[in-house]
């Protein structure tokens, strides 16, 4: 098992190098580069002289491949993602600061999607083709169709117009006020989890219908077990194995959704960091954030694969 994990992690390296290369190059090709931005902000007329000085100071005067290998070398040998071009502080520090917040938001959204999606999916499967099943399926399509950013904007705007209340835009750290902190994250987590709970529900329903047709469920019925025991002990575990895969497949979309909702709810996580960095063309920060997202997605999928071992005895005994 340890060898398997090691091999998976090693196989990840070329992928990440390739991905970082693409990010590294494309952000530098974005129109409006950082030098223009800095010069315009400092209200200095863009004389040729200062432009070249600035480029040299930021290390942007060398060819792109040189810049890339320098960056890669610092990452491999010093574990450094470089410094922010604006603040000159290490990108790694900023990311380590922001990552837990996004992680928390993602986990909460995931919990919402599983806690809502799985029971409703099971219920809809057991009541297949009844009114209840149709209503739940219709709701799930609605939940999928309503965009999270739209809902998030509504939540930010309308309560303040109607009741003079709006979600706090000042971030409440967990250490200061744990409950306030969790409440602040709850709304974006609900909105982020909404679409995933709809997908989870539909998948759970389909899989439960499939499992309930299996011969071993008939055996369980022939033993005299109640529907509750059959579902909890015999069906759910087998139905949930693919649901776990879904979690892995959705990891990327979850991160993408978090980026948008952090922006709307002003939550200082990785998403907000990325948007700020893109706005200010802070190349090392952008590359660093994408790299961490990439690593996160790969690790989530590794965890998913490993969790099969616990759910599926055929894999465990291999």
């Amino acid at each position, binding site marked *: 098992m340890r060898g398997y994990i090691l091999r998976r992690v090693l196989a990840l390296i070329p992928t990440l190098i390739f991905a970082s290369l693409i990010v590294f190059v494309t952000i530098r090709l974005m129109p409006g580069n950082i030098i223009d931005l800095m010069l315009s902000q400092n209200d200095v007329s863009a004389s040729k002289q200062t432009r070249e000085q600035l480029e040299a100071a930021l290390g942007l005067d060398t060819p792109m491949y040189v810049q890339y290998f320098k960056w890669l070398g610092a990452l491999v040998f010093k574990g450094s993602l470089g410094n922010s071009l604006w603040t000159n502080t290490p990108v790694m520090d900023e990311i380590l600061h922001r990552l837990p917040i996004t992680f928390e938001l993602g986990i909460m959204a995931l919990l919402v999607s599983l806690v809502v999606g799985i029971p409703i999916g099971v219920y809809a499967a057991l009541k297949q083709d009844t009114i209840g099943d149709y209503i739940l399926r219709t709701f799930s399509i609605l939940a999928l169709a309503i965009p999270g950013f739209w809902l998030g904007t509504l939540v930010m705007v309308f309560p303040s117009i109607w009741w003079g209340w709006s979600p706090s835009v000042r971030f409440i750290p967990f250490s200061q006020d744990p409950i306030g902190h969790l409440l602040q994250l709850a709304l974006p987590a609900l909105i982020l989890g909404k679409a995933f709970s709809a997908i989870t529900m539909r998948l759970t329903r389909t899989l439960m219908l499939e499992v309930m047709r*299996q*011969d*071993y469920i*008939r*055996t*369980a*019925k*022939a*033993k*005299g*077990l*109640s529907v509750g*025991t059959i579902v909890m*002990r*015999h069906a759910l*575990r*087998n139905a949930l194995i693919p649901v776990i895969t879904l979690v892995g497949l959705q990891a990327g979309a979850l991160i993408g959704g978090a980026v948008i909702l952090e922006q709307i709810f002003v939550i200082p996580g990785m998403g907000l960091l990325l948007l700020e960095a893109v706005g200010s063309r802070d190349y090392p920060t952008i590359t660093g954030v994408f790299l961490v997202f990439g690593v996160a997605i790969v690790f989530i999928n590794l965890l998913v694969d490993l969790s099969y071992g616990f*759910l*599926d*005895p*055929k894999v465990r*005994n291999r």
Partner: protein
Amino acid sequence: MSKPLLQVRNLTTKFGNGPGAVTAVNNVSFDVDAGETLAIVGESGSGKSVTALSILQLVPDPPGRITGGEIVFDGIDLTKLNEDEMRAIRGNRIAMIFQEPMTSLNPSLTIGLQIGEPINLHKRLPWQKAYDKAKELLDRVRMPDARSRLANHPHQFSGGMRQRIMIAMALACQPKLIIADEPTTALDVTVQAQILELLKELTRETGSALILITHDLGVVARYADRVCVMYGGKIIETASALDLYAKPLHPYTRGLMASIPRLDQPAGLRLVPIKGQPPNLAQLPPGCSFNPRCGEVAERCRRDVPELMKADDKHMHACWMAPHV
């Protein structure tokens, strides 16, 4: 004589509604005495499994439902019980063994749990005791190394071993009746005989009655006391196993007999399968449903439906042309 353990009377089970509806079990009646082995024989699609599932009230609904008849078990009509009352009987007083050992066990649960489950449920024994019983049961079905195998999962066993596990599971609560639906069809020929011997021996020990469903008349001869032959959802002949072998009366039964390999037959002699297709239940011919395939068909067979009639006290058949009183 005491009352039979199970009396099935005019059982009818249908699938679907309207013109496409199919009568999978059509007005079927039979008895099973305590401790005896009754074989139900017939081609694929003749309604054997549906009969078995009807007894346990496990016909998948929709599309299936029991539309008529009584199933009196130990003095209780099972068709009148509610789901909770029925659950108390399933796995406890009537147990079932299914045809497909490879898929009938839950792949993600240990076999100890799966065998202990009915004991825990019906006998209200704590899990630890249920596992101890499960171990004894595995010993009884001759599973080597029973104690350590309790923790194994189904995929670690061969088909024959899995069917032993199914038998252990069926025996768990010492049921009065075990229904075995083609328990050996999916297994190797050599394993088939072992499993049937085991089943026969264990039911003899516990005094359980056995309904043995098969399409193999050869099996019937060795293991059954009495036989019902089914065709197109109906019982078309019933007799003691000995009688049926000595003088099969219905042309369909005789056709089945002719298709069994016999040891006293010269080697190389071709078996004669019954010509024609099993009937389409949605479009049965008028009169006797066997008439398109029957070699002795007469005019009356295309007009009137033959019901079971007596040839003698214990031997009944549904054929106009066979001798009857």
